[in-house]
C-alpha cells in the first residue's frame, strides 16, 4: 500500500506538470503571420504596411485577384474602393447606367437608395477601412515609439507617416462628400471594442484642412516621390477640391483658397498629356499630367474591381474585346443620351471632332428604354488595357489591366481654377481661366478654332462632363451646381422614370449604412433616411 501511495503521488506530480505544459499550448500564435508585438521592430515592415494603405484603394484583399478580403458583407470583387467610388459617383448621375441585377445596384441610377443599400455600405466600410489602417500606422510611428525602437533616424518612416496622413485625409474627404456626418476616429482613439463618436461636416472639413496643411511641408515635392505615392501635388489638389466644394460642406465659399492651391499645383511642374486617350491606357503612369494615381498591374496587382471593372464592364454588344486588350466584356456599363448630348454640335449631332467623345454606337441605341439591355444607350470606350501602340497588357489571360487610374490630374485642376475664378475667388483672372479651359479644348479638338471666348459656370460644368466623365467627379460636381436632385437638370431614368424626375434633396448625402447605425449607438442617421 505504501508503494502504491508513492506511485500515486508521483503520478499526480507528473500529471500536474503535463497539465501545465498542455495548458500553455492554448497560447497558439500563427506560424507565419506576424503578431503586433514584433511587426514594428523591423524597419522593412513599415514599407509593407504603407503599401497596404495604398493597395487598399486598388485591390480587394491580401490575395490577387481575390482571397482574404479586406471587408466582407459584399462580394469581394465588388468590394474594392475604386469600384465602389465609381458606382457612387457615376451610376447616380447622367454619365453612367449599369445593366446588371446585382443586389440593390439599380437603386443608384434610380435614386431610390436606402440605408440598407449594400453598395453604399461597401463604400462606407472601405473608407473607414482605409482610415483605420492609416490611424494604425500613424499611431505606431510617433517620435516616441520610433525612438523606443531605435528607428527615430529613419527618414523613410517619417515620409510614410506623412503619406498615411494624406491617405487618411483623402478618405475622410470622400466621407465628408458622400456621408457628411460620419463617425470620426483618429490615431488618438483606441482599437477594438470602442464606439467612435460622430462628427459633422463643418468639423470634419476643418480637420481635413488642418491635416493637409500640416503635412504640406512634410511631403516630397511634386513628382519627387515614387510614382503611386503621395506628394505635395496630391495634397494641394485635395485641398483645392476641398475648398471648391466648401460651400456645399460648410455653407461658406472658399473659392480664393481653391485658387491658391490650384495655382500651386499648376506651378508644380505638371503638363497636359498630348493625346487625351493616352491618359486611360497602359503607360499613363509616365504622363506628366497625372498628379495622383491608383495603380494596377496585370501580373502583380490583380483585382476584380478597380481598373479591371472599368475596362471590362463597358464592353458588350458588338464591341470587340481585343480592342480593349481583354478577353471579354462584362456587358454592363453605358451612358445616357444626356452625357452624349454634351458633345452635340449646333445641329444637334455628336461632334466627333472632340476626341473625348469616345462612344461606341454600333448596335447601340441612344435612348435607353431598358437599363437591363446592354444595347440601350451608347457604350463608352475610354478605359483600355492597351498601350499607345495598341498592344495588350501583361496579363496573358486578358483579365487584369496594367492601366493605372488617374485619380487627380492636371486637367481637373485647370477646370477648378476656372470655376474658382467664376465663383469669385481672388488670385486668378478670367483670361487665365479661359486659357486653362481652352488648353483642354485645344487638346480635344486638335485645333484652337473651338476655343471659347467667354465662359459661364454652366460651361464649366459641361466642360467637366466632357473632360472628366467616368473619372468619378460627376456626383460631386452636380451637387455643387445644385443639379443632382433638383429639376434643374433631368437625365434619363433619374428618379426611376424614363425622362427623369426631380428627387428629394436629402439624396445629396448618402445614408449612413443601417448596419453601422445599429452597431454604433453614437451615430445619428442622416436626414431623410
Amino acid at each position, binding site marked *: 500500500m505504501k508503494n502504491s501511495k508513492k506511485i500515486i503521488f508521483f503520478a499526480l506530480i507528473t500529471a500536474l506538470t503535463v497539465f501545465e505544459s498542455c495548458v500553455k499550448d492554448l497560447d497558439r500564435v500563427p506560424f*507565419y503571420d506576424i503578431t*503586433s508585438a514584433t511587426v514594428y521592430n523591423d524597419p522593412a515592415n513599415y514599407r509593407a504596411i504603407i*503599401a497596404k494603405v495604398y*493597395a487598399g484603394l486598388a485591390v480587394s484583399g*491580401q490575395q490577387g485577384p481575390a*482571397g482574404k478580403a479586406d471587408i466582407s458583407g459584399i*462580394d469581394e470583387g465588388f468590394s474594392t474602393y475604386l469600384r465602389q467610388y465609381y458606382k457612387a459617383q457615376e451610376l447616380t448621375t447622367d454619365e453612367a447606367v449599369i445593366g446588371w441585377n446585382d443586389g440593390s445596384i439599380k437603386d443608384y441610377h434610380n435614386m431610390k437608395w436606402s440605408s440598407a443599400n449594400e453598395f453604399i455600405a461597401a463604400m462606407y466600410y472601405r473608407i473607414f477601412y482605409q482610415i483605420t489602417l492609416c490611424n494604425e500606422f500613424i499611431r505606431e510611428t510617433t517620435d516616441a515609439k520610433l525612438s523606443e525602437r531605435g528607428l527615430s533616424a529613419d527618414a523613410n518612416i517619417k515620409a510614410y507617416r506623412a503619406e498615411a496622413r494624406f491617405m487618411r485625409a483623402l478618405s475622410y474627404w470622400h466621407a465628408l462628400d458622400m456621408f457628411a456626418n460620419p463617425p470620426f476616429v483618429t490615431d488618438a*482613439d483606441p482599437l477594438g471594442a470602442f464606439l467612435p463618436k460622430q462628427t459633422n461636416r463643418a468639423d470634419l472639413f476643418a480637420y481635413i484642412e488642418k491635416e493637409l496643411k500640416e503635412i504640406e511641408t512634410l511631403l516630397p515635392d511634386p513628382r519627387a516621390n515614387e510614382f503611386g505615392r503621395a506628394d505635395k501635388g496630391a495634397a494641394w489638389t485635395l485641398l483645392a477640391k476641398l475648398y471648391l466644394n466648401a460651400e456645399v460642406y460648410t455653407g461658406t465659399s472658399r473659392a480664393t483658397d481653391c485658387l491658391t492651391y490650384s495655382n500651386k499645383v499648376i506651378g508644380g511642374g505638371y503638363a497636359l498629356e498630348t493625346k487625351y486617350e493616352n491618359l486611360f491606357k497602359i503607360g499613363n503612369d509616365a504622363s506628366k499630367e497625372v498628379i495622383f494615381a491608383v495603380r494596377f498591374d496585370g501580373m502583380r496587382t490583380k483585382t476584380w474591381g478597380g481598373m479591371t471593372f472599368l475596362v471590362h464592364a463597358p464592353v458588350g454588344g458588338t464591341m470587340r474585346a481585343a480592342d480593349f486588350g481583354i478577353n*471579354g466584356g*462584362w456587358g454592363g456599363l453605358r451612358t445616357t443620351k444626356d452625357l452624349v448630348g454634351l458633345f452635340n454640335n449646333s445641329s444637334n449631332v455628336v461632334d466627333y471632332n472632340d476626341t473625348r467623345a469616345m462612344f461606341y454606337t454600333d448596335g447601340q441605341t441612344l435612348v435607353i428604354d431598358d437599363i437591363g439591355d446592354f444595347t440601350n444607350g451608347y457604350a463608352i470606350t475610354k478605359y483600355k488595357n492597351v498601350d499607345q501602340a495598341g498592344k495588350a497588357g501583361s496579363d496573358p489571360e486578358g483579365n487584369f489591366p496594367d492601366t493605372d487610374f488617374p485619380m487627380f490630374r492636371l486637367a481637373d485642376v485647370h477646370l477648378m481654377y476656372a470655376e474658382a475664378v467664376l465663383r469669385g475667388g481672388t488670385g486668378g483672372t478670367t483670361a487665365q481661366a479661359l486659357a486653362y479651359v481652352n488648353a483642354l479644348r485645344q487638346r480635344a479638338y486638335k485645333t484652337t478654332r473651338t476655343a471659347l471666348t467667354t465662359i459661364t459656370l454652366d460651361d464649366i460644368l459641361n466642360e467637366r462632363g466632357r473632360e472628366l466623365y467616368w473619372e468619378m467627379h460627376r456626383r460631386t460636381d452636380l451637387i455643387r451646381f445644385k443639379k443632382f436632385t433638383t429639376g434643374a437638370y433631368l437625365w434619363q431614368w433619374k428618379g426611376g422614370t424614363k425622362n427623369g424626375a426631380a428627387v428629394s434633396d436629402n439624396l445629396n448625402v448618402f445614408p449612413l449604412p443601417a448596419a453601422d447605425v445599429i452597431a454604433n449607438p453614437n451615430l445619428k442617421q442622416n436626414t431623410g433616411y
Partner: protein
Amino acid sequence: MKKLRLQNGFIRHLSNWQKVLVLMLFGLMLTPSVMAQRTVTGTVTGADGAGVPSASIIVKGSTNGTITDLDGAFSLKVPDNAVLVISSIGLSTQEVSVGNSSVINIKLAEDAKTLGELVVIGYGTAKKKDLTGSIATVNEKDFQKGNIASPEQLIAGKIAGVAVTPGSGAPGSGSRIRIRGGSSLSADDPLIVVDGVPLATGGIGGIANGLALINPNDIESINVLKDASAAAIYGSRASNGVIIVTTKKGRKGDGFRVNFSTILSSAQPVKYVPVLTGDELRALVNKVGNASQKALLGTENTDWQKLIYRNAFSHDENLNFSGTVAKVLPFRLNLGYLDQNGILLNSNMNRKSVTLNVNPRLLDDHLKVDFSYKGSFAKSKFADEGAIGGAVGFDPTHGPYTSKDAYQGYFEWLNPDGTLSTLAGRNPLGILNSRQDVSDVNRHIANAIVDYKFHFFPDLRVNMNVAIDKAFTDGYTKKDSTAASAAAVKGVNNTYTQERTAKTFESYLNYTKEISGFRADIMAGYGYQDFYFEGVNNFFNLKGVRQGDTIPSAITPKSQSTLVSFFGRANFGFKDRYLLTFTMRRDGSSKLAPGHKWITYPAVALAWRMTEEGIGKELFSDLKLRVGYGVTGQQDGISDYNGLKTFSLGGNTAQYPFGNAYISTLRPEGFNELLTWQKTTTTNVGLDFALKNDRFSGAIDYYFRETSQLFNDVNIPAGANFTNRIKSNIGTLENNGIELTLNTVPVKTNNLTWEANFILGYNKNKITKLTLVDDPKFVGVTTGGIGGGVGNTIQIHAVGAPKNSFYVYQQVYGDGGQPIEELYVDRNGDGKITPEDKYLFQKPDADYSLGFTSNLTYKDFSFGFVLRGSIGNYMYSNRNSGGTFGSNSLNYLYNPARNVLETGFLNAQYFSDYYLQNASFLKMDNLTLGYDLSSLFKNKQMVRLTAVVQNVFMVTKYDGVDPEIGGGIDNNIYLRPRTYSLGLNIQF
C-alpha cells in the same frame, strides 16, 4: 441436427469446427465416453425467439462451463443432476436443472433486456435503466439489412430529433446531420466520437465527415447524446449533440471466423429538372426574343441532362476475419473495397479500407486494452458539377458537337468576332469531358485505450486513451488548353496537398461503489486535443505559368489549434429508483482571445424510476421520468487566430507598385479581443416507458435550448477595427421541441415477427437577439446567397423569426392567378416598392420530422423499409427565379426554367415570394428484401441474399426535382439516384 431459424443476423451462425474451437478453448475434452458425465446440447434464446450469442452456461457450484455460439447453441459435458446457470448481459439469469434430458433449450426472460443494455455515454458506459439524460441508441439489431453505404443511413429516420439529410448523388458525398435543429447560426454539425476518439468536425477531400470513414458492417452501436445533461461531458464540442459510434471488437474466446459480403448496385436518375425542349425554346424566342436572339437559334432538340447522366454500376466488397490469436488476443479485421460510380459522367470513388481491432484482456480482466486502427484510402474522380446547372440551362436548340476542331469539337458560344464568349455558359458535355480532377485521400485513425482496474482497489479504475488521426490529401486538376473552359488560361495544371493531424490524449479515473442500494459512479478526467493543418496549392497553366496567388517565398500555410479539458461526472443511484447525475467540464481553447479562453460547463440530471416505486406497475415494466439541465459550448466555425491581433502577408499578385517596384503588403488583421465561447443551455424533460408485454416501448422528451453569445459575423462600428465584420459573441437563439419515439412489435409468432418503430420530432427555433443594442430598424443579417446577380441573398437571420427565414417581396397576382412581373405588395404603404417592403416568410427547416421503420420476418425471409417525412420546410426555387427569359444582346441563348411559360417574366424577379414553395415530403429511403439460404448449405455456411432499392419513392407538392436540399435554396443539385442492389453475405 440444428433447427434452422430465421434470425436477425448471419453472425449467429457458426460452423461445427468453430464450435470445436470454442469448446477447445474452454479446455473441454471431447472424449467419447466419460463415466457420470454426459453431453447436453441446447439453445439459449431471448424472448424474441432468437438465439442469444455469448451467453454463459456454468454448472452451478463448479468452474465448468461454456458460452453459446452465435446462434445461441451450446454443448456441455455435465455431471448428472447438474444445475446450469445461464446468464447473459442484459438478460435475467436463469437456473435450470438438467435432470436426465440431453437437450435443453432455455428461453431467457426479456423484461430487463433493454434496461440492462450497456450504453456508451462518453468516458464510460451506463446501463440503460440508469440513464438520466436523453440518449438514443441504435444497435446492430436495429440496422436495416442490405446495402448501406454510409453509417448515417443506419440512423436516418430512426432517432427522434435527429435529422439526416442525405448528401447529393455524388460518390462519397456526406449527409447533413442535425440534432434538434442545430444550436447556432453557422456550425451545426454534431460531434462524432468513434471508439472514444472525438473527431475533428468537417470533411476532408474524398471523405465527407468522420462517419464516412467507417464501414457500416463494422458498427456495433450508435448512441446519440441529445440533451445537454448527457452531452455536457463533451462540453465545448457538444452543443450540437454527440454521436458515439462503437465498432465491433474482437471478443475473448471467439473462434476464427471469416465473413465475406458483396453488393452490386445500379444507380439511375429518377427525375430530371423540367426544361424546355428545343422546339419550345424556339417558340419562346420567336415570341419574345429580338432579331439577334432569333438568329442564334439552332435546329436541334438536345436533352442535355440525358447527355450528362448515366446509369452507374458500383460494387462493394468486405472481407472480415475475427478470432483469437494465442488465446489472449481477440481481434477483428475488416478489409473493404468500394468502387462507386456516380450517375454524373466521370464521377467515381474508389476506396480501400482496413479496420483492425485488437482487444486483449489481461491480468484476470483487470487490464483491458483496446487497440483500433482504421485506414481509408480513397481515390476520387470528381466530375465538374458545374455541368449540372450547365445542362439545365444550356440552349437545347444546338447539338453537343460541331464539325470544327476548335474546343475539342464541342459546340460553344462565340462572340461576333469569333472569340469565345466570356459570358455564356460552356457546353456541359465539354465541361465534364475536358477536366480531370483526381484526389487521393489517405486517412489513418489509430488509438489505444488502456483500462486498468486496480488489483488492490478494484472499485477504482484508470482509463487512458491515446489517439492520432492523420489525413493526407493530394490531388490535381488538369484541363487541356483546347478545352473551352481553359482556353483563356492556356490550360490548367493545378496540384494540391494537404495534411491534417488530430492528436488526442484523454485519461480518467473511475470509482464505482454499491452499498446497500446506494450506488455511486464517479469519474474525473483530463483531455488534450490538438488539431494541425497544412496545405499547399500550386496553380499552373500548361505552359508552367503560375496562376492564382501565393504568399511570398512559397511557404506552406499552416494552422493549429488546441483544446484542453478537465471533466468529471458523478452518478448516484438509490434503490434503482432515484438517479442523479452531475457533470462538470472545464474547457480551454487556443482559438479564443487571451483572457477569454476558459469556460466551465455544468450539468445536472435527475431520474425517477416510477415503476420501482410501484407506480404504473400493473401496466408498465418501466416508467422513468427524467429532468436534465446543462450547459455546453462551441468553438467550431471560427478560425484559429481570431482572438489575436496579427499581420498577414499579402500575396504576389496583390502587391502594390511604388515607382517600378512591387511591394508585398502587410495587413493588420481584424481581431476580437473579447472572443469567447458560444454557450448553449438546455433543459430537457423526458419520460421513458415500456409496456409489460414488451410489445410497446418508447420515450417522449420536451426540450428548451437557448444558445447565447452566438458566434455571429456582426458589423462592428466603422473605424474601430481592421475590418467591418467580425466573429463576435452577439445574439441568442432558442430551440424548443418535442420528440416522441415508439417501438412496437405488433406481431410475434414463431414464424412471423413484425417490428415497427415510429419517431416524431417537432422543433421550432427563433432568434431572440442579434445586436448589442436593440434597434427596431434593424432587419437582420442577410444570408442564403442565391445564383443570379452577385451578392444577392434570399434569407435573413432576424430577431423574432426562425434562423434563415426567407426575406422576400409579396407577389401580386393577376385575375387569372398568374404573377405580375415586378408588381409587389407595398407592405409599408409608402407608395414605393423599396427593400423595406420585404417581409419574412417561412424558413427552410422543417417543423415536424417523422420516421417509420418496419421490419417483417417470416421464416427465412425478411422485409423492411424506412419511411422518412418532413413537414413545414420551404424551398426557394432559384432555378425558376433565375430562369426567366427576355430580350437581350448577350450573343448567346440559354434555356430558361420551364416555369417561365407560366410567369412569362422577361426579367428576373429573384425576391418574389412566388418562388417559395412548401417542400414537405414523404420519402421511402429504402426497401429491403432478404432471404437466408443457410439451410441449403446444411447450415455449414451462413449464406444470405438481399435485394435493396434505395430512394424508392417520394411524395411532395414541391415542383422541383427534389424537396430535400440543405439550406432551402434549390439551385440544381447532383440528382439523387434510385439505386437497385443485390447483396450476398457468406460466413465460414
